[in-house]
């Protein structure tokens, strides 16, 4: 019988996690003890202070961590092996927290709806009823969204840092469950929003079932859920190989669903379109960061020795994902849905990076390893995506946000600033040189090329060209079309919260495109995963 002992917890290095979860619990208490009218400001403050504190702590830990035992990676194995704080973890933590802060700012925006937030006044009131109208006239708000956001961010911090499959599963659920709820809380178009929540929930629960069964089979193979023990068992290769292969496939299903890769991409457009746009902005960036972090850790640390089994599988998934995303995006007339399909295409590009060359020995000068490439791509795509979705919230007509294609026509003549900023994000996503998207694409494609995956890079370039088509089409619609006389949308002036978010995203996209050096150094400095 094994002994039960007191676990050692590395409190200093895990501070970012404690701060975020602590702030989330504090938010629940604020919800319980403050009267409804006065909750909003304290909630926003708790959220922002919590996230900023966690970001500060992450930076402190990042400057402080030592080299791990063998020197290839920096960081430490914490909480009895359950949480691994290494270079890539800290970089991903910083990224998730930054997107969290931007997301909070978008959540708190109230000028666009005339003094109300973008979330339902009372989610329990049925759409179109008297109760809903009363909630709106009283100016009620669901301030629960802030603690939900914090819990979700907490899960996103834990997900790429998990050192065993069980922690990874719990983190997966902690990040997903609040998101399911947030998706269903839109103030306008509530039927769409509720439908999005249900689809996301049912499919998400389905896919986490696959993840868990995969974890059970890999546990059966290795006799441990710890990633480093699994790595050892795979290298020894004595146990039943079928168990391992089926386990890897099922784990991959769970993770590929979260990143929205084909053939598990079906939820992405529906959920991105139905969810409140502030939630979509946050989710599109932060969930991808967290899920790719976990995907990389699982495949690079636990299944590294089994590379030949999973690389071709992910290569095929990458090809299908990017071609499907790009081709279907061409067929979209709704801007929000078009961005959702483009998110699928970007998942494919990121997967191209995941299968790339990992060791610096396989690379030439000025090339980046797959891990570095993917981390950089996540940064560039995240900022462009948050910025683009944030701009969707300000283009409105009488029915709320106007995302239908024709209502955007001629926007460049009426609001050159908004249209110009949107066009810039489009160009970055398309990967035009001098924007951040180009550097990101170049990094992941070269690393896949060095690993000999030219047959993935060729479709990737094809998909990029298709993608350029629909991004440019949107820009042409905004600048070179006559406004639709009956359905034209106008720009509602937002408060500093949305303007600031867009400005930060614009600045990041521009700077990462022109001088990517400092961030690339940061990515290279993050080093490797601890095995």
């Amino acid at each position, binding site marked *: 019988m*094994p002994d039960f002992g007191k676990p050692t917890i590395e409190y200093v290095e895990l501070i970012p996690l404690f701060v975020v979860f602590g702030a989330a619990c504090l938010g629940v208490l604020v919800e319980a003890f403050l009267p409804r009218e006065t909750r909003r400001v304290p909630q926003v403050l708790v959220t922002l202070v919590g996230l900023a504190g966690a970001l500060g702590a992450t930076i402190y830990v990042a400057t402080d961590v030592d080299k791990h035992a063998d020197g290839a990676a920096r960081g430490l194995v914490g909480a009895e092996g359950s949480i691994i704080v290494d270079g890539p973890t800290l970089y991903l933590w910083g990224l998730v927290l930054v997107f969290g802060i931007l997301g909070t700012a978008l959540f708190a925006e109230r000028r666009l709806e005339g003094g109300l937030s973008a979330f339902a006044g009372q*989610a*329990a009131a*049925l*759409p179109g009823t008297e109760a809903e109208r009363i909630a709106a006239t009283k100016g009620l708000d669901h301030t629960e969204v802030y603690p939900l956001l914090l819990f979700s961010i907490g899960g996103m911090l834990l997900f790429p840092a998990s050192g065993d499959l*069980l922690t990874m*599963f*719990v983190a997966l*659920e902690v990040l997903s*469950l609040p998101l*399911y*709820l947030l998706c*269903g809380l839109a103030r306008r178009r*509530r*039927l*769409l929003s*509720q*439908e*999005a*929540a*249900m*689809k996301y*929930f*049912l499919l998400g*629960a*389905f896919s986490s*079932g*696959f993840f*868990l*069964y995969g*974890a*059970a*089979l890999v*546990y*059966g193979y290795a*006799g*441990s*859920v710890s990633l480093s023990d699994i790595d050892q068992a795979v290298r020894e290769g004595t146990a039943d190989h079928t168990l391992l292969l089926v386990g890897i496939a099922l784990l991959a299903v769970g993770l590929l669903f979260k990143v929205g890769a084909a053939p598990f991409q079906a939820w992405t*457009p*529906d959920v991105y*379109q*139905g969810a409140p746009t502030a939630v979509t902005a946050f989710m599109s960036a932060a969930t991808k960061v967290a899920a790719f972090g976990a995907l990389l850790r699982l495949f690079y640390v636990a299944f590294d020795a089994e590379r030949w089994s999973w690389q071709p599988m992910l290569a095929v998934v990458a090809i299908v994902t990017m071609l499907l995303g790009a081709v279907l995006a061409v*067929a979209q007339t709704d801007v929000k849905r078009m961005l959702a399909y483009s998110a699928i295409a970007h998942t494919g590009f990121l997967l191209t990076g995941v299968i790339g060359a990992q060791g610096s020995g396989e690379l030439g000068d000025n090339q980046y390893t797959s891990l570095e490439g993917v981390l950089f791509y996540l940064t560039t795509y995240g900022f462009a995506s948050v910025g683009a979705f944030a701009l969707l919230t300000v283009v409105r007509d009488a029915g709320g946000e106007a995302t239908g294609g024709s209502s955007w026509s001629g926007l460049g003549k009426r609001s050159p600033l908004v249209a110009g900023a949107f066009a810039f994000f489009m160009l970055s996503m398309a990967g035009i040189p001098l924007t951040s998207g180009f550097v990101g694409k170049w990094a992941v494609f070269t690393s896949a090329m060095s690993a000999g995956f030219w047959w993935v890079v060729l479709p990737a370039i094809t998909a990029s060209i298709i993608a350029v088509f629909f991004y440019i089409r949107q820009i042409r619609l905004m600048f070179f079309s006559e406004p639709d006389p009956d359905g034209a949308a106008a720009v509602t002036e937002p408060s500093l919260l949305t303007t600031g978010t867009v400005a930060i995203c614009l600045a990041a996209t521009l700077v990462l495109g022109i001088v990517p050096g400092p961030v690339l150094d940061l990515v290279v400095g993050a080093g490797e995963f601890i095995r």
Partner: protein
Amino acid sequence: MSLTPYIVLSAILFTIGSIGVLTRRNAIVVFMCVELMLNACNLAFVAFAHQHGNLDGQVAAFFVMVVAAAEVVIGLAIIMTIFRTRRSASVDDASLLKF
């Protein structure tokens, strides 16, 4: 004790669960099938824990139960809202978002 029957049973339960998710139309039944899948995982975890003689799998089963309970809360809340709005919990009726 041979392990095979337990693993086979868990695989059968998992398959029944996933086929149920794919074929049933009522959101509540779909959700019950997901729970069946999670319980199939629990059975596999516990059986493997017995085989390996360590507690990792049994601990995992406890965590899964807690997570499943949390999932029920969220899931029923979402399905309830949908049902109150539409007077139907059929997953085929919710079809405003497509293509």
